């Protein structure tokens, strides 16, 4: 039995959540297309698509994390090099996010752009941080002895 992959219960839960998230995403995209067709612009593009994407992928992620199907049984702790690399990537992402937000705040919208870039960048970085934190929490919980 594999020790690095998800176990059978995790796989079942993951497949179920994945199927339902796919249907939800497809339904929301179709609904968005229908609304646009009737001239209802509930949010400016690309934010509308981004929100739908976040709902679909977010629901999938939340459900597999909630069901304990995100980290497999054999996923050990990161090595020192891995931690350093992860820290560096995170620091670059956060710095990039802050710099872009500050720059956009001082100069306003770029010509031809919608100004949604910094928002998308910030949300993506925040989601990334939340997911990483969750992985560490799951690993700690799974390695804890029973009460």
């Amino acid at each position: 039995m594999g020790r690095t992959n998800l176990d059978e219960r995790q796989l079942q839960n993951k497949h179920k959540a994945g199927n339902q998230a796919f249907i939800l995403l497809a339904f929301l995209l179709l609904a968005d297309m229908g609304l646009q067709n009737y001239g209802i612009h509930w949010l400016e593009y690309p934010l509308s698509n981004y929100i739908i994407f976040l709902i679909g992928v977010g629901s999938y992620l939340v459900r597999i994390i909630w069901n304990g199907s995100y980290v497999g049984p054999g996923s050990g702790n990161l090595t020192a090099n891995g931690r350093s690399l992860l820290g560096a990537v995170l620091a670059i992402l956060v710095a990039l996010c802050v710099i872009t937000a500050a720059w956009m705040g001082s100069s306003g919208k770029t010509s031809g752009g919608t100004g949604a870039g910094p928002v998308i960048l910030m949300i993506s970085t925040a989601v990334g941080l939340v997911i990483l934190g969750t992985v560490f929490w799951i690993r700690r919980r799974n390695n804890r002895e029973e009460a």
Partner: protein
Amino acid sequence: MGKNLRLKASRAAKDMSQKQLADAVGVTRQTIIAIENGDYNPTIRLCIEICLTLGKTLDELFWEGDEHGEN
């Protein structure tokens, strides 16, 4: 599906924690908890792994006939 107290008792008799049993059969601790609580019905493959690890037969750990008076 009720709680699998026989699995819990067999594991305790072997002085194994949920984590140790989970590591031995290659699943997460949450899966062992779910099986013991009756929240998850394991595949025959996992049942056999657990039986081999605890030195029990499938009947001793997973057969529910006696509990429901069907046997």
